[in-house]
């Protein structure tokens, strides 16, 4: 029942519970449905991007372009729907176009990595610079999105109990998690990702479709990146080419804290979800406690990462 491989995620869960409990004891009003809902609401785009990142890291790769992808898709959708400066497209069509662009870009990265054997680190690094520049060619300044569909989306949600509402942004996060989970656990594609991350050469020798799996998973990662950008534009009500600089590191941190090994082959989406919630809780603590500044936030995040890595090393050496 309790397998050795479940230990990292068990540790992650315990750390999350400890963190949340101690924060609840320290700060009045922390332990509430509202805070829990906000954890999902505030970290929706981190979480969505982390789903794709988990796929990529499970396959033994890495993606540095996700921050730029978020900025690019947020500004693209804003430009597409804007009737004065942009194209004035209907919102749903603009959203679908943005998602298609993201998926296509992810696929191109996959081709560079798989066909031309450019290391993922370099290909996605180039992708990061390219998308950041491209985002600024769409628009130098941020564009406020003033569409009825957008405000409807932002303010709608599912009521929980009598006074709380689960906002649609948080709902998108949960649905993305569920779909990614089904893809990873329930399909051949998902199994192949684990196999490739475990040992690419043996996956190839087993006759698994390594090339197509890799290109598809980078396309999927492009899709989640673009979706995260859309959610970010819903969250802020605007598109901005300068948002989410360095965000990829937060996403990678969330995935690693969640127990997914950067060498590939080991990890789970549950872990990533917990990793996102841990980062969210730490940030929430900093919101509740005005005395702490961003320097301490970074140091805490770094130390937490260190702690997890040391735990993981200790456990995987046995």
């Amino acid at each position: 029942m309790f397998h050795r491989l479940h230990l990292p995620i068990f540790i992650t869960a315990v750390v999350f519970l400890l963190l949340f409990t101690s924060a609840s004891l320290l700060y009045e009003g922390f332990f509430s449905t509202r805070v829990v809902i906000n954890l999902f609401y505030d970290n929706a785009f981190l979480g969505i991007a982390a789903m794709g990142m988990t796929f990529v890291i499970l396959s033994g790769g890495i993606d540095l372009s996700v921050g730029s992808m978020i900025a690019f898709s947020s500004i693209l959708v804003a430009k597409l729907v804007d009737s004065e400066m942009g194209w004035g497209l209907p919102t749903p069509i603009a959203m679908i176009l943005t998602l298609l662009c993201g998926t296509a870009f992810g696929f191109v990265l996959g081709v560079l990595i798989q066909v031309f054997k450019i290391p993922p680190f370099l290909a996605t690094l180039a992708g990061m610079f390219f998308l950041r520049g491209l985002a600024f060619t769409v628009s130098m300044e941020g564009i406020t999105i003033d569409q009825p569909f957008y405000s409807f989306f932002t303010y709608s949600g599912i009521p929980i109990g009598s006074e709380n509402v689960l906002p649609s942004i948080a709902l998108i996060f949960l649905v993305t998690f569920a779909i990614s989970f089904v893809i990873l656990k329930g399909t051949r594609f998902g199994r192949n990702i684990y196999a490739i991350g475990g040992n690419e050469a043996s996956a190839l020798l087993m006759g698994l479709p390594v090339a197509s799996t890799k290109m598809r998973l980078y396309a999927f990662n492009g899709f989640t990146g673009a979706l995260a950008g859309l959610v970010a534009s819903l969250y802020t009500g605007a598109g901005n080419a300068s948002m989410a600089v360095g965000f990829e590191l937060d996403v990678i941190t969330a995935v690693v804290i969640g127990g997914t090994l950067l060498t590939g082959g080991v990890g789970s989406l549950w872990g990533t979800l917990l990793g996102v919630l841990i980062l969210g809780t730490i940030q929430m603590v900093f919101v509740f406690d005005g005395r702490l500044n961003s320097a301490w936030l970074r140091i805490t995040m770094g130390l937490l990462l260190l702690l997890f890595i040391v735990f993981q090393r200790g456990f995987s050496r046995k």
Partner: protein
Amino acid sequence: MSGLWSHFRQSRYFWAVIGLMTLVFFNALFSDNFFKLEIREGNLYGTLIDILHQGSIVMLLGIGMTLVIATKGIDLSVGSIMAMSGSLAAVLLTQYELPFFLAGIIGLLVACLAGLWNGCLITYLGVQPIIATLILMVIGRGLAMLIADGQVITFEDPAFVTFGNGSFCYLPLSVWMVMLAFIAVSFLMKRSSLGLFIEATGDNEAAARLAGLQVNWVKLFAYMLCGLLAGLAGLMAAGRIKAADPSQSGQMLELDAIIAVVVGGTALTGGRFTLLGTIIGALLIQTLTTTMYIQGVASAISPMPKALVILVVCLMQSKVLRDQVQALWLKQRSSV
């Protein structure tokens, strides 16, 4: 002559040189006064000098990064180390009134220690280099902000400012420092067996260990040297703008340094390395940045052409593409 050409053609930095020459050629045609140099107050001024001066920081980082990458590692923390050494030296200078000489040395020591920390995590705890240095990248930035109390620290100390902005014998001090670092490290690599040890470690760590090599010491050395050079770059960057900015100094420069190394022809897979290639790679990136600046490309958009250059050079170095092009060419010739 043909022997020299084929030697150059086979060299690792061939494509970086071609890229650099293309850019210089472009500038010769389209940029006014690109090659113009003039002497004012005993110093050389001109766009070319500017490129060397601006590119010196990435060159310094690149030299250390080359060695780290050659051991099959990577160092994402150099930007944060820059911020730490710069901020620490500035705080010691302004608040504790130490002379620059002492403050600078303490900054460099801390940078060295940061490299040692990276090295220890990687060798003794067996953490992957990308994660180990990511940890320091996050923590180091926080520490720098803590040291400087979140403020940008300005100073007027003449020695510190000269360190970043001064000149010596017609050339900026920064260029001399890069030359010194390049010659010293090259000498160390070529004249001692260290270069060989580093290549052996990166090429096949298990084999190197079995051959009796102290692989851990080799890695520690590489990360410490990389930290030291990053510390030096941090002091230079602070002196240049007469201020230490803990949150912005060195931001994203780790990526520029990695690009310089890779474009210069050292593979991320470790093993063989070329310091000269890294210098050429850094020059290529800086020339590109300066060219876009001269041509009036908005600085926000400039990452895009940079990405394309990285991609083209990587593709040219990719064996798969070369083989395909070669096969295509042979087929065409045989059909004629």
